[in-house]
């Protein structure tokens, strides 16, 4: 459902006016209340009054994850701690975690955009949402939770893990929507198969899946195995958490709730804005957040914007599914590779499970890529030549799509570590 028709179907010109008004306010606010960002603006020679049109946005400096680390934990908060009602923290795969804070009104904004996101994914008041995102310092669990309550859904705060229990809830509590990472959705299917349970026979209809990059082929597989419509949700704790954008049931790009989050696409190397439709790094300015506003925050996620109207009726700009991150893009023998591309290839090969691990090593001056792929029992052939043919087929497909040769190693089922949250797909042992 369209949760907030007035905001979500607003005429584009009218929204642009609203964006500009909010942008001017937030820049002025940040200049006054966030000293580290004021310094950046002063250094760049830009004052709040220089922002008179949306086109002036590129004059403003970027806010980055490094700024958050330098001001760790609360140095970028713009209100006294007494007003902060909630702190979340990102996982911090490299170095220290980062902290983000919310005042009461920020939590309200978050619930509003999250309700829109769930509506995009098929929810309406009364939907029973099994929320299998982790509850805790991670924004996933509580973000979905507040949005679902705002909409009037029934929330099962299942959190992540306890997979057999999750299957039991799906069966007995009549969940009609599941929210979790796509890799966990597949893991649920795998455990269901082992237990002889058919998820398709349950009332489950929708999945709002995200928090990690995934591919179209993986979507097909999840939809087929669970008998659901799966949509991609986008968000990051630095901006607000989940609910920055979500695909509608057209499944053709994620609507960014751009009355709250103003998106731009830039060239990640030069920082220059890119023309509409081109792929680059997503940069977001929060227009309505107070405790920790982000002006031109560099998400490091790679995507492009779609400005054409969407058949669903929402006028929010769309972005393509995230194809990777500037920091998990692998450069192998000079070729840019995203793990998600390898995943797509594997899903196209019949009988192969999308469980894989990429090992990169350097042999002399050359990068060596080895991909471990789990074999499934239904393609396991007693004949070595058939298994070798399977390896060869994967190798050829990868060569055709990436233009790179990789060694393929078939490994035993379930030998690659399963993750409840974000899945690791690359072991880079190159000493560069």
């Amino acid at each position: 459902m369209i949760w907030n028709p007035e905001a979500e179907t607003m005429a584009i010109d009218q929204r642009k006016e609203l964006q500009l008004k909010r942008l001017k306010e937030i820049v002025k606010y940040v200049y006054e209340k966030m000293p580290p960002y004021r310094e950046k603006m002063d250094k760049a020679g830009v004052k709040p009054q220089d922002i008179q049109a949306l086109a002036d946005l590129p004059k403003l400096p970027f806010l980055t994850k490094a700024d958050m680390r330098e001001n760790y934990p609360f140095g970028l908060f713009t209100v006294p701690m007494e007003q902060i009602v909630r702190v979340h923290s990102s996982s911090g795969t490299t170095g220290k975690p980062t902290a983000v804070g919310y005042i009461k009104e920020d939590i309200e904004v978050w619930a509003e955009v999250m309700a829109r996101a769930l509506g995009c994914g098929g929810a309406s008041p009364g939907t029973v949402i099994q929320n299998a995102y982790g509850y805790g310092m991670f924004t996933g669990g509580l973000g979905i939770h507040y949005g679902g309550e705002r909409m009037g859904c029934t929330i099962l705060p299942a959190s992540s893990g306890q997979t057999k229990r999750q299957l039991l809830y799906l069966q007995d509590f009549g969940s009609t929507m599941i929210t979790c990472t796509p890799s966990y959705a597949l893991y649920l299917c795998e455990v269901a198969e082992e237990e002889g349970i058919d998820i398709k026979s349950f009332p489950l209809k929708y999945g709002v899946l995200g928090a990690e990059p995934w591919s179209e082929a993986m979507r097909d597989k999840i939809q087929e195995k669970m008998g659901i419509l799966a949509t991609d949700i986008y968000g990051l704790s630095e901006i607000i958490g989940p609910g920055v954008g979500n695909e509608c049931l057209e499944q053709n790009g994620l609507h960014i709730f751009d009355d709250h989050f103003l998106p731009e696409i830039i060239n990640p190397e030069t920082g220059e804005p890119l023309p509409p439709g081109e792929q680059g790094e997503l940069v977001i300015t929060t227009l309505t957040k107070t405790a920790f506003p982000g002006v031109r925050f560099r998400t490091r996620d790679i995507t492009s914007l779609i400005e054409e109207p969407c058949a669903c009726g929402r006028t929010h700009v769309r972005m393509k599914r995230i194809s990777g991150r500037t920091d998990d893009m692998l450069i192998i023998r000079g070729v840019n590779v995203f793990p998600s591309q390898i995943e797509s290839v594997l899903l196209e090969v019949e009988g192969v499970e999308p469980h894989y691990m990429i090992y990169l090593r350097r042999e002399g001056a050359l990068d060596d890529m080895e991909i471990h792929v789990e074999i499934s029992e239904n393609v396991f052939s007693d004949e070595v030549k058939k298994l070798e043919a399977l390896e060869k087929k994967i190798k050829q497909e990868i060569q055709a799509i990436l233009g790179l040769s990789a060694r393929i190693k078939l490994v035993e089922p379930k030998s690659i570590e399963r993750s409840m949250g974000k899945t690791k797909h690359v072991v880079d042992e190159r000493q560069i």
Partner: protein
Amino acid sequence: MKVQQLSIFLENKSGRLAEIANILAKAAINIRAATLADTSDFGVVRLIVDDVDKAVGALHNEGITAVKTEVIVVETSDQPGGLSKVLNVIGQESLNVEYLYSLGTRAEKAYIALRFDEPDKAIQSFEKSGVKVSTKEDLKAQNLA
């Protein structure tokens, strides 16, 4: 008559084969014949055991990839020329053998397991040429299954 064989997928990791043997030992499975085909990355272990269903169950419980496959077992004389007699039939009838291995000998007879892509045609050819195809009961009687 086809005989059921156990085929197991194994990564080339030290100790993996011993693990399989331990699982089967714990399940009181008697291994009558074993062969291992390997590449640099993985191996396929093929076993003739006394209770193939129980063996598959025990391996699955431990998360091992194991399936039941079928081979043909023929008996021939345990003397020079015994194997060539069998292979001549295969040559004459243009049958395609995927692999073969020996189950050992009993009372002047040698038993050979063969995998064909067209097993029914192979059985007919052997029977026509007077090569005896063993049944599961024959093998049981000889303590070979």
